[in-house]
């Protein structure tokens, strides 16, 4: 029994890792033979970014069962803290190898986003359902707003922090690392397809193994019935916070990756606003709430499809919206569920009848 159980879940996990590795190999072959458009080439890193975001949000939405509409905020924290570090190092320690710099940037982004996850999680996770959703949205917007007025400059005396362009106490030959709404320019392009895939695999590894462990069971128990989980001695706050902050930290990793793929990083409503958060949520919902592999695949398909079908670009969000509504009705409306079950029963009956005859 035991063997079957473990091998079933790890076989499932292997398929997930396998899909990623095969996709990587195929892409590498295409890249090597030059059979790939420049458009597609430019999409490779963003695809991994979105996949990591979707997988990490699924930890909050699918496994913990709380709707977060502020996931882009954590991505924003990761992006800016990681890019800040790299830009600082480019000036302060130009000899540092890019790989090492990026590795540390990833760690910083993850830790910072994770810390924000804890900080925000402590008050937010006391709330439930709609309230929790709207407060995470609020926090996401606040983060984006704060980053937009954040000025950090570097001169021979060190770092200077200010909230307006003019109030910064920096000498004339100092340079801005973060310049308010203009963000960070000149982040070294340390990311690449291979490192992105490795990060995606690490994300999958963390989330999948977490789910199939004592901690994961505790988190899912809280999701399924908080009162019962409490009655068997599970510390609700601890595990909620843990899931929320791990999810945030992974979004931070995606943010660092995103930042190091761009020469200019700015916090716009488009990339770090709640529209982005909702976009990630759409990936999770369409991929199947709680299905880690599904959300990854949905992220890739939904990002690729409109790019490949450029003509449809105007209609892309419209199509997303319709698909989202139809999927929700199809999967959750009691009447639809009933109808589906009846259909399934009929199909089974039909099959059985055929077999008999």
């Amino acid at each position: 029994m035991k063997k079957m159980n473990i091998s079933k879940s790890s076989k499932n996990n292997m398929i997930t890792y396998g899909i990623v590795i095969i996709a990587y190999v195929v892409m590498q072959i295409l890249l090597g033979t030059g059979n790939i458009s420049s458009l597609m080439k430019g999409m490779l890193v963003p695809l991994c970014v979105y996949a990591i975001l979707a997988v990490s949000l699924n930890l909050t939405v699918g496994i913990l069962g709380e709707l977060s509409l502020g996931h882009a905020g954590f991505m924003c924290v990761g992006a800016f803290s990681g890019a800040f570090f790299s830009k600082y190092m480019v000036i302060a320690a130009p000899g540092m190898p890019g790989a090492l710099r990026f590795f540390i940037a990833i760690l910083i982004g993850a830790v910072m986003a994770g810390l924000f996850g804890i900080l925000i999680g402590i008050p937010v996770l006391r709330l439930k359902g709609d309230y929790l959703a709207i407060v995470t949205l609020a926090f996401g917007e606040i983060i984006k707003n704060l980053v937009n007025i954040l000025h950090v400059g570097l001169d021979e005396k060190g770092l200077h922090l200010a909230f307006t362009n003019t109030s910064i106490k920096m000498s004339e030959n100092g340079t801005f690392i973060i310049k308010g709404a203009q963000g960070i320019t000149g982040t070294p392009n340390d990311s690449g397809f291979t490192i992105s895939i490795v990060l995606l695999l690490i994300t999958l590894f963390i989330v999948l193994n977490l789910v199939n462990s004592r901690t994961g069971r505790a988190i899912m128990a809280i999701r399924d019935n908080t009162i019962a989980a409490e009655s068997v001695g599970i510390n609700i706050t601890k595990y909620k916070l843990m899931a929320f902050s791990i999810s945030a930290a992974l979004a931070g990793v995606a943010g660092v990756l995103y930042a190091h793929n761009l020469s200019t990083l700015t916090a716009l409503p488009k990339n770090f606003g709640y529209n982005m958060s909702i976009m990630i949520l759409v990936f999770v919902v369409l991929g199947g709430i709680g299905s880690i592999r599904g959300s990854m695949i949905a992220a890739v398909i939904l990002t690729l499809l409109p790019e490949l079908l450029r003509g449809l670009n105007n209609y892309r969000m419209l199509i997303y919206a319709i698909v989202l509504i139809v999927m929700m009705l199809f999967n959750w409306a009691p009447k639809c569920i009933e109808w589906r079950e009846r259909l399934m029963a009929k199909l089974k009956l039909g099959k059985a009848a055929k077999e008999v005859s």
Partner: protein
Amino acid sequence: MSFLTYLINGISLGSVYALIALGYTMVYGIAKMLNFAHGDVIMIGAFTTYTICSTMGLPPIVGVLVAVVVCTVLGMAIEKIAYKPLRKASSSLAVLITAIGISYLLQNIALIIFGANSKSFTSIVSMEPIRLADGQINITGETVVTILSCIVIMIGLMLFINKTKAGQAMLAVSEDKGAAQLMGINVNGTIALTFAIGSALAAIAGVLLCSAYPSLTPYTGSMPGIKAFVAAVFGGIGSIPGAFIGGILLGIIEIFGKAYISSQMADAIVFGVLIVVLLVKPTGLLGKNIQEKV
């Protein structure tokens, strides 16, 4: 003197929030759902008026009336098609996510029809500004109309709910759907009516909002919509006077925040208010407390 001007502007913006918040709070009170698409109904209302008045050149009153009709029908249709089937769904997240889908749908329909460029909305108010204290305080016609409409609508709504049968039915449904049904109240009809009223108010709010801030895009409604939800939570969700007070207070906070703290941080301040309210008194200023039964 500038303080008074800010205060009046704040009350004016707050009146718009209050009108939108009424829609949120009524729907939340009765259908127990967060209608995320409510903000986009505002935008549809504003575009309808824009089309009627600016494109077709008809008088403003026609524009407003058509917008009210369009939004009412739209609100009821959304409820019927997207929300009603999910009313008995096992997860309350299902209907919220669907509402987010509707919000996207409305934005993108508007995007395809009207494009992404912002349209300059012609104010429906043609009243001369009022000048007080030797012109140091300047109250625009839009401000006067907005505040007056909000007060009139509030009073009308309170009378409707407390004095009519349909209004009493709404109260009953918000207390206990099952019991209301047993008492012979048409629950589905009452919920549909709630959406109709909320959406009609959203249309008016949209027109007033765009008269005061005349740039109109498919995304015009979403931020005010979210802020109005903050207002509804602030005042205590489900409470109609709460939505009014929450809306006005939030408008004042936003305008003061813009004026005295930082214009870039105004949104953050508004959201900060939401967070503080929910953490200190999750039921809002006038809300009721409900506990899960074990």
